[in-house]
């Protein structure tokens, strides 16, 4: 009560000021009902490495502040950054809100306390030892029955160091609020309209409580009851429609309470009826897609050279006992599966720690790209015959892929998986995208099914001797083919070197090339030592010395992202604008059609489409004739904003092509494999003309 009167007095004072026509520089009062503070997840900032900070609001009991859509009245919490040059801040991350009835109206917001996270990206050229000063103006409307606008500057000074140090005092708070961030729904939601009723249907059973919080105004009447009906594996939530006459996609946050607790999901409901398959059926479909994706991965250009060699050696292995061949196949399969599990585990753990990552994340780190270049180059040198691997003079002529023994088979599996990572096969994108929204156990199952699909063709060849009869007879030609197959690998290494250049500039390229020269030297020294018996120890010693020096090279890489991804010369550079969520929103508000190309330099299929489709004059013309603004979302380096948009479409990797038609029509996702004629056909179907 006391608070309310104070509030009234403040409002009265404000109106008095206003009434007297005095210049009031900032109409918002300094905080009285809310204490605001900036907290950081790191104690020290590492130059170039993004980190999370949070705006912590302590709210007087009985009062509340507002969510991104405040409901019938109110205004969201705002944070206006004043950052040092080169520092950028991501959008605020909103935990799901609570409902606050106000008479016949309804508001969405938070009481007692709330933590709103934002990701800060510092530039790479910060000097360790100095401090990074973050400043922002935080403002909010705090309400009980009456509302008080408040504002305050918030600051945070963090020491800059060569490594980021976590801040253990906020670990719990950050983890708690992240658990309340809505995740993209792993199932699709549909809606139906019946008069003034809007019903959302979702393939989830056992829902005890459900609330829908729309992003846009006028979709539903906020204060009306939300009626929950459960029919086995299907849940329906019936809402009262709002003033919007035509609904397209119904978007917002759905908060579900089941036996396992309360979870929030972002949904994009399309009009329609629910397919009959339930939640598990959906998982089955995702597992199936993963398996198919794994199968297709075998013929991707990064993997094919290694696997075709391996397959040909199988023919050679006719003389081995069937049992040996079978166990060899099993070892290879184990190598593949262990690598997939390790990769998936790493990805899931990092995501659990709140990193915005997706498939291909390994390639967003220049250090990893450099190591992959070394691996591919090393294997290629081996195929070229510069050196042999294995049992030395006993096994002269052996190559890495035909290394005898089950351990060798196992590492071929690992190598194949590592080489496969840059290639995203069709089906895989959908499966992995869906997997990352599932609980960790189910997500792991999807990765394992991918691995099974990937390993299966070779393992099956090992197990069914009859199939091996189809393989060509071994002979001297295999030696030639081996030399020849080194070149796709050189090509892959060269391509990754280009990716590295885009990520780190010419300095990074210099480091990479230096590494390749040294690696060549090491391979040659080692190869020489294999040809003679004298001086072997010295040769191995110097090889190891050079190799360990090569391994330190990634730390020399300039970690700057000062290099802006420029379009390849054959694309008309002017036609693509860089993507930001705000630019997209702006264009959509102007009612313009927008095409967004989610791409990355390290994504092969993206590059193929850029060259063969998007840079074609007829495709460019088809876009410009219809007034489509082209936005390029470059995911070559980590970018949480793009990751979030990808997640919104249930994806966690590139390529993704989305056409946002004119007006408020829902976005359309295009296939990942495109041809120029297909693009023109899609454009005329979706935009006319």
């Amino acid at each position: 009560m006391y608070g309310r009167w104070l509030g009234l007095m403040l409002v009265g004072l404000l109106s008095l000021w206003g009434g007297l026509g005095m210049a009031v520089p900032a109409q918002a009062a300094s905080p009285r009902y809310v204490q605001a503070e900036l907290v950081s997840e790191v104690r020290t900032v590492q130059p170039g490495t993004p980190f999370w900070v949070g705006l912590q609001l302590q709210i007087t009991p009985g009062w509340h502040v507002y969510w991104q859509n405040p409901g019938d009245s109110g205004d969201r919490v705002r944070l206006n950054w004043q950052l040092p040059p080169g520092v950028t801040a991501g959008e605020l991350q909103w935990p799901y809100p609570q409902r606050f009835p106000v008479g016949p109206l309804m508001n969405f917001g938070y009481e007692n306390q709330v933590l709103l996270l934002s990701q800060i990206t510092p530039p790479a050229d910060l000097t360790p030892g100095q401090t990074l000063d973050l400043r922002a103006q935080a403002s909010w409307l705090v309400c009980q029955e009456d509302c008080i606008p408040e504002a305050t500057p918030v600051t945070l000074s963090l020491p800059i160091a060569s490594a980021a140090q976590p801040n253990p005092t906020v670990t719990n708070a950050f983890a708690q609020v992240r658990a309340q961030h809505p995740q993209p729904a792993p199932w699709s939601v549909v809606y139906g309209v019946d008069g003034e009723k809007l019903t959302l249907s979702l393939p989830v059973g056992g829902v005890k409580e459900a609330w829908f919080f729309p992003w846009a105004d006028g979709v539903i009447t906020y204060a009306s009851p939300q009626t929950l009906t459960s029919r086995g594996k299907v849940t329906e939530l019936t809402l009262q429609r709002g003033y919007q006459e035509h609904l397209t996609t119904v978007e917002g946050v759905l908060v579900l309470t089941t036996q396992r607790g309360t979870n929030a999901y972002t949904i994009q409901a399309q009009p329609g009826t629910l397919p009959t398959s339930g939640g598990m059926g959906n998982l089955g479909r995702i597992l199936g897609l993963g398996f198919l994706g794994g199968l297709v991965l075998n013929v991707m250009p990064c993997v094919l050279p290694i696997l075709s060699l391996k397959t040909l050696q199988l023919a050679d292995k006719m003389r081995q006992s069937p049992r040996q061949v079978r166990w060899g196949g099993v070892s290879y399969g184990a190598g593949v599966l262990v690598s997939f599990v390790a990769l998936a585990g790493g990805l899931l753990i990092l995501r659990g720690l709140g990193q915005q990552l997706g498939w291909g994340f390994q390639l967003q780190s220049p250090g990893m790209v450099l190591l992959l270049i070394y691996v591919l180059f090393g294997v290629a040198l081996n195929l070229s015959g510069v050196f042999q691997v294995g049992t030395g003079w006993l096994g002269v002529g052996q190559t890495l892929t035909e290394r005898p023994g089950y351990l060798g088979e196992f590492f071929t599996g690992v190598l194949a998986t590592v080489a496969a990572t840059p290639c995203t096969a069709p089906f895989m994108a959908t499966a992995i995208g869906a997997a990352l929204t599932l609980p960790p156990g189910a997500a792991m199952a999807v990765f394992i099914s991918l691995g099974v699909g990937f390993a299966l063709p070779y393992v099956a060849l090992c197990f069914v001797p009859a199939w091996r009869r189809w393989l060509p007879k071994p002979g001297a030609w295999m030696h030639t083919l081996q030399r020849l197959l080194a070149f796709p690998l050189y090509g892959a290494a060269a391509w990754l070197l280009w990716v590295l250049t885009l990520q780190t500039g010419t300095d990074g390229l210099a480091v990479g090339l230096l590494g390749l020269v040294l690696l060549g030297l090491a391979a040659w020294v080692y190869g020489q030592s294999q040809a003679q018996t004298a001086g072997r120890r010295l040769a191995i010693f110097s090889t190891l010395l050079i190799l360990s020096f090569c391994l330190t090279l990634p730390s020399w890489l300039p970690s700057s992202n000062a290099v802006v991804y420029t379009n390849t010369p054959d694309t008309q550079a002017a036609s693509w604008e860089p993507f930001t969520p705000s630019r997209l929103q702006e264009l959509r508000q102007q009612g313009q059609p927008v095409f967004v190309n989610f791409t990355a330099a390290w994504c092969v299929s993206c590059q193929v489409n850029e060259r063969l489709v998007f840079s074609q004059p007829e495709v460019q013309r088809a876009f410009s004739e219809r007034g489509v603004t082209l936005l390029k979302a470059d995911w070559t380096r980590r970018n949480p904003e793009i990751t979030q948009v990808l997640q919104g479409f249930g994806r966690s990797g590139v390529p993704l092509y989305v056409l946002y038609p004119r007006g408020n029509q829902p976005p359309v996702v295009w296939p990942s494999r495109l041809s120029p004629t297909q693009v023109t056909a899609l454009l005329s179907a979706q935009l006319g003309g």
Partner: protein
Amino acid sequence: MARFSWFVPATAAVVIAGATISTLTVNTSATVRVGSPAPNFTAKTSTGQTVNLSDYKGKVVVLEWTNHECPFVVKHYSTGNMQKLQQEAKAKGAVWFSVVSSAPGQQGFVTAEQANAVVKEKKATPTAVLLDPDGTLGKLYGARTTPHMFVIDKAGQLQYMGAIDDDPSLANQNVTKANNYVRAALGQIMAGQKVTTSTTQPYGCSVKYKN
């Protein structure tokens, strides 16, 4: 006879008001939409008259939900922004009703005399201030905030509903820079054009209805 002349219209008004209120209660579930007929209403003004929306067919009508103690309303009155818009609308021949739906005891509630005093003090020029202490009119239109604006065309169709402009802040200096949706809608309606931005999310204090 003199008594009768007072009694008949008064009885008629009570009957009409009663009938309207009963229809209103039935209508509250229907959502008001742009492009549909604006629901008819009868309301009492602060000068003691009774107005009926259907009497204004052929004129453009602006409904402005207000609460003189709400800081967002204060922003538009202390800067003269709302008064200017009222003058412009009336110069174009539009009718302007300021509606007060604050319940007794709530922020912004005014008696007829207080309402007139506020109008005088602010140098406001609405056609009339409509007193809606039981919130019937507010709920009929789904009025949620102060200010919340509605523009009805000459045929009685609702053509605009939502915020007054695109700046939900409390910064006085922004009112002239903001894109005023009501001014734009009035201009387009008067010119016989379709209103480009016909619905927006209103901002401001919640309407202080009876709890």
